[in-house]
């Protein structure tokens, strides 16, 4: 019994990481309906940015992340402003191909700059520290921090969405682009700000990714699919939904791994397909769409 409880805890904690991967994607998909195939690679890019800052300036990863965040905001803003705003329109396909091209460029650019070697963000003892819960149960401090950060990110983003004028503008643009323009909202600027914010979230995700496991320039696409699954299961426009989606994928994967380590990823995908067949629009979609 305690054993299963441990599995559940592991699953929820893993879900926190996936929710962080997915939160930025949820933001962009919710506001501008952009299927960003480069999202996973952008997280990896952020991880390398943190690594570089940490190495060159001798900072620890947390501080390096804090420094990287404004830089990544600017990068996201510029990317949207220069490139992605031009590709967005009524069609699904051009943004798909543009973000695919971006994905390849980022991956191979990173390969050129950093080689294919595996990297890790080092924090010292806290990496493997854990909190004893009695019985044989222990929670890793880092996974707990990851989940905590995911919840904090969702809380902050919801605060932005529901309590600020900018957030209202985001939601209005997402609801009805034409009328939002009629209301004087410069949707291109809105999109650029949203992408900047998404990159900041991606940087936080990158921190926890890099601490938890090795990373190299090519791991982007695998992370991308979990992020998409979480976003879709959660439902369009709901960040809590995305968090729930991440947790569901995390739980499914952990239970799958418990049955047979080879089934971990498969279990996650099956869970996704089950939810999506029963609820094609996700668990917590917005009222209209």
């Amino acid at each position: 019994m305690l054993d299963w409880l441990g599995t559940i805890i592991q699953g929820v904690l893993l879900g926190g990481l996936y929710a962080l991967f997915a939160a930025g994607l949820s933001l962009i998909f919710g506001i501008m309906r952009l299927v960003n195939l480069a999202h996973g690679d952008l997280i990896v890019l952020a991880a390398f940015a943190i690594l570089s800052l940490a190495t060159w300036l001798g900072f620890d990863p947390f501080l390096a992340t804090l420094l990287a965040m404004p830089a990544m905001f600017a990068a996201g803003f510029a990317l949207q402003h220069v490139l992605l705003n031009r590709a967005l329109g009524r069609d699904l396909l051009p943004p798909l191909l543009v973000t695919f091209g971006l994905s390849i460029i980022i991956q191979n650019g990173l390969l050129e700059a950093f080689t294919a070697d595996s990297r890790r963000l080092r924090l010292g003892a806290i990496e493997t520290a854990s909190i004893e819960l009695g019985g044989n149960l222990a929670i890793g401090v880092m996974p707990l921090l990851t989940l905590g950060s995911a919840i904090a990110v969702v809380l902050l983003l919801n605060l932005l969405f529901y309590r600020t004028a900018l957030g209202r503008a985001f939601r209005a643009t997402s609801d009805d682009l034409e009328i939002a323009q009629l209301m004087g909202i410069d949707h291109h600027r809105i999109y650029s700000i949203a992408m900047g914010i998404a990159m900041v979230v991606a940087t936080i995700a990158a921190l926890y990714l890099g601490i938890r496991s090795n990373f190299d320039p090519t791991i982007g696409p695998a992370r991308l699919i979990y992020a998409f699954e979480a976003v879709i299961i959660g439902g369009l426009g709901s960040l809590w939904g995305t968090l729930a989606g991440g947790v569901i994928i995390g739980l499914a994967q952990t239970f799958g791994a418990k049955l047979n380590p080879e089934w971990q990823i498969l279990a996650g995908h099956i869970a996704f397909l089950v939810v999506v067949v029963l609820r094609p629009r996700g668990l917590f979609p917005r009222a209209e769409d």
Partner: protein
Amino acid sequence: MPNGDENQLIELAQYRIETKTRASAILALAGVALVLIFAVRGLIQDLIFVFYMLALAQCWNLLAGYAGLVSVGQQAFVGLGGYLLFALTIGAGIDPIAAVVLSGLIAAVFAVPTAFVVFRLRGPYFAIGSWVVAEVYRLVFAQFKQLGGGTGTSLPPSATNEIFGIEWVKEMFEVRSPAARDIITYWIALALAAGAPLLVYLVLRSRCGLALFAIRDSEATAESAGVDSFRAKLGVYVLVAAATGMIGALIYLQKARISPDAAFSVLDWSAYVIFIVIIGGVGTIEGPIVGVIVFYAMQHYLADFGTWYLILLGAVAIVIMLFAPKGIWGYVAQRYRVALFPVQRMLVRPHE
């Protein structure tokens, strides 16, 4: 001039284009079929690659460009076709050519339940869903130890030495078994590459094609006009799965070695195919032809540059999408108003 005569004139003009295209196409095919008398092995391999990528591109184009089903999961059927070929030839001793066809048919059977799952989703959700389904196929096949599990397996020469017609080819062209096998593979690839656009053309000119155009314009309107959009989409999906399965079988007949990661690779069998179709021009039959030529040229001459080649590929994708979102052929066709394979039905206006 009354409307009737005008319609006839238009049809006549199109018919002329069609017959011209047909005549030159047949000549071209015959030429291509025989080029291998003089060709070097390397060229044959390259041409086989071009043919099966073209065939895959035409299939994806039918699915996404015409039926509006933007799938990022067609690699499921490529891998399925490949594994079925191995299973049928190694396990059941079936002749490889028959196995290719059979693989396609069995893949079509798998496509039905797959469709019931993925058709629950729309638009971008459908794209991601189809990708996840392909991943499920990959992970499931990695579990089958009989087919090599995660590391895969090879096709033993014994399976392909008895291929139908091999003796005839060996005599005709005075070659040994491996080369003869290549020649037959080449012909199969050619048949698929020529057959795929023909299939697309026939589907679009049929009633099903008309239904697809209607659905693409507005599904709700089409349904209210009596079009069963689910059946139309299911029909196309299964048909494309069959074709893709056959192509996958051919690919792995040629490669003679299969593994789940390679057979179900989203990059090789989706990303590059989508690149070819969109860069060439989605929603046109000519587009994928242009796209595959561009892709092959880039790969052939630049692949040695490794990461820089890939960066260039990504840059090409971005630049063309920003400046010619309809693809190279789409841009050319719009500017110069040409069509080699006219599939559009035109509404003729009476002269004012």
